[in-house]
């Protein structure tokens, strides 16, 4: 029997010492596609969450007019991008990590010579790629067919948007991870997860563009990292600023993400020192 050397990029990854993580990403993808029904159902459930906005916005601004610079086309583009980003990053990793902690399954990770957090991020990247192909691309296709004339995907802004989106991707991972790791300390349940997720959706600009909030609230939210999940990337796309401003914004987003990553590392280390592995 043969064990073929699989994957074209593996030699490169091996050379860089990243083979384990590349394999982890591949495995995450293969595991996800074992449940095609889940993928399909999740895909068709997004329109329920978003399409209402589109009709609402169309009803309000269909005959022209705007609020604070948001007209029909801007809002449709805003929510389309939010939708697509959400589809990629909303992996509910927090629930998976909490289940690993509560069932004691985390022990399987701890007896292997890989970094637990990096390993889970590799899986997150794998699923992210899968979601990009199976969710985001079809969604973009669908949205441009439905609202073709109102969505403007000018090529000049896409580069910056992608950079910001990458930061958002990593930040989404760190936030879900942080929430999942609290299971070491609290008995996590769906309710906490749901409430936190709901709040983050609101203060990250997924539901309402942040600058439509009352001014004082907007000022506060601007001091928090959550805007980098949706609001900032979409803003960069809609209203590209001076290059230095965009660079500065990106740097701040990266620093926030780095801070969260360090926080997760500390929390995880503390959890291992203070907490026990359940089961057996």
């Amino acid at each position, binding site marked *: 029997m043969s064990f073929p050397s699989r994957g074209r990029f593996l030699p490169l990854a091996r050379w860089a010492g990243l083979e*384990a993580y590349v394999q*982890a990403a591949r495995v995450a993808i293969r*595991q996800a596609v074992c*449940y095609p029904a889940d993928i399909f159902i999740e895909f068709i459930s997004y329109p329920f969450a978003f399409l209402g906005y589109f009709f609402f916005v169309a009803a309000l601004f269909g005959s022209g007019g705007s609020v604070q610079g948001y007209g029909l086309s801007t809002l449709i583009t805003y929510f389309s991008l939010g939708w697509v980003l959400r589809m990629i990053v909303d992996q509910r990793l927090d629930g998976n990590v909490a289940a690993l902690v509560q069932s004691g399954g985390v022990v*399987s990770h*701890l007896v*292997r010579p890989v970094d637990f957090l990096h390993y889970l991020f590799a899986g997150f990247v794998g699923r992210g790629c899968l979601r990009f192909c199976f969710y985001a691309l079809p969604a973009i296709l669908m949205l441009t067919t439905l609202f073709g004339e109102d969505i403007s995907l000018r090529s000049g802004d896409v580069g910056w948007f992608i950079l910001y989106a990458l930061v958002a991707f990593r930040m989404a991972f760190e936030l879900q991870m942080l929430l999942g790791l609290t299971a070491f300390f609290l008995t996590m349940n769906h309710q906490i997860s749901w409430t936190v997720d709901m709040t983050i959706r609101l203060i990250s600009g997924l539901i309402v563009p942040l600058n439509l909030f009352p001014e004082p609230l907007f000022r506060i939210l601007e001091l928090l990292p959550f805007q980098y999940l949706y609001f900032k990337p979409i803003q960069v796309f809609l209203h590209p600023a001076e290059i230095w401003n965009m660079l500065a914004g990106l740097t701040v987003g990266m620093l926030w993400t780095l801070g969260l990553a360090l926080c997760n590392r500390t929390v995880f280390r503390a959890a291992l020192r203070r907490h*026990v592995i359940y*089961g*057996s």
Partner: protein
Amino acid sequence: MTPIINAKNLRKIYRIKRQHPGAWNAVKSIFFPDYEQRVAVDDIDFSLDEGCLAALVGPNGAGKSTLIKMLVGVLRRDAGDLDVMGLDPFNHRMRYVRNIGVVFGQRTNLLWDLSVQDSFELHRAVFGIPRRDFLCRLDELRALFNLDEILRQPARTLSLGQTMRADVAQVLLQQPKILFLDEPTIGLDVLSVKSLIAALRKVNSLYATTIVVTSHDLTVIEELCSNVVLLDKGRVIFDGTVNKAVDTYGNYRKLRFQFTHEQNLAMALELIAGAMPKMLQRIATRRESLELSTVLASDDVDFARLLELAQRLRDESGLREFSMEKPTLKEVILHVFS
């Protein structure tokens, strides 16, 4: 030989949140949790030599799993020293786990939805095993653990016995110096247990892998291990070779007499009472099988008199069979814990 595992005054205390009945108490405990301390591993000293097949034995709750978790580096000890292959398992975990293999009987490390082969492939990458070594080793393990029939099967479709075989084979891919197995035979049928034991013995002799198993199944221990560490309520009550355990605690012999007719039993008892009164104290009569059985302290075994007695029993009261046996490890352990 220098020990490969060295534990000194090892200690682990769990904090358990007490749960009181009733909804009010449940709400109260959110704000005022009531903790209780449970000493799971209590000042343990022991050492194991390289290449040995050792068992951690004890009743449920003795602290076996807790000890294994500390030995594999996933649980921090509260006190004491632990040295395995010159490393501190918890503090050097990443470096340490490269050289060990760990399987918990209650949980599989295989990828649930993917084939065993896919799990092995991921495992190879995670442990950075060069492909050539991997294929070589896999070839050997395929024969040892009978893997051909299951390599292409998704883990979720394997039987318990197959899962355990695949799990153990997987962690042997990285050629570990020590293999830790926590209750590896739990839920397995007799045949699966037998084949697992045979495979483990071969692994031990072929690769000189040190094997540490915990089990509450004494048959496994008896057939597999050369060393035992007996644990009770978090303490070590014995640490040494199986032979030494049997010599230390098994200083008695089991005697069995079988007769041809039921009427013979009463007469035999009388004869025994006259010849060796000490034997009578713990004698058990089983009428259905026409048997008398008893135990005798090793020091009280006097061959000449025993043979003489047997002869008289044969001539006068129809003795058909007579046997004297050393206790097995299993009996010794049951004896210690009862």
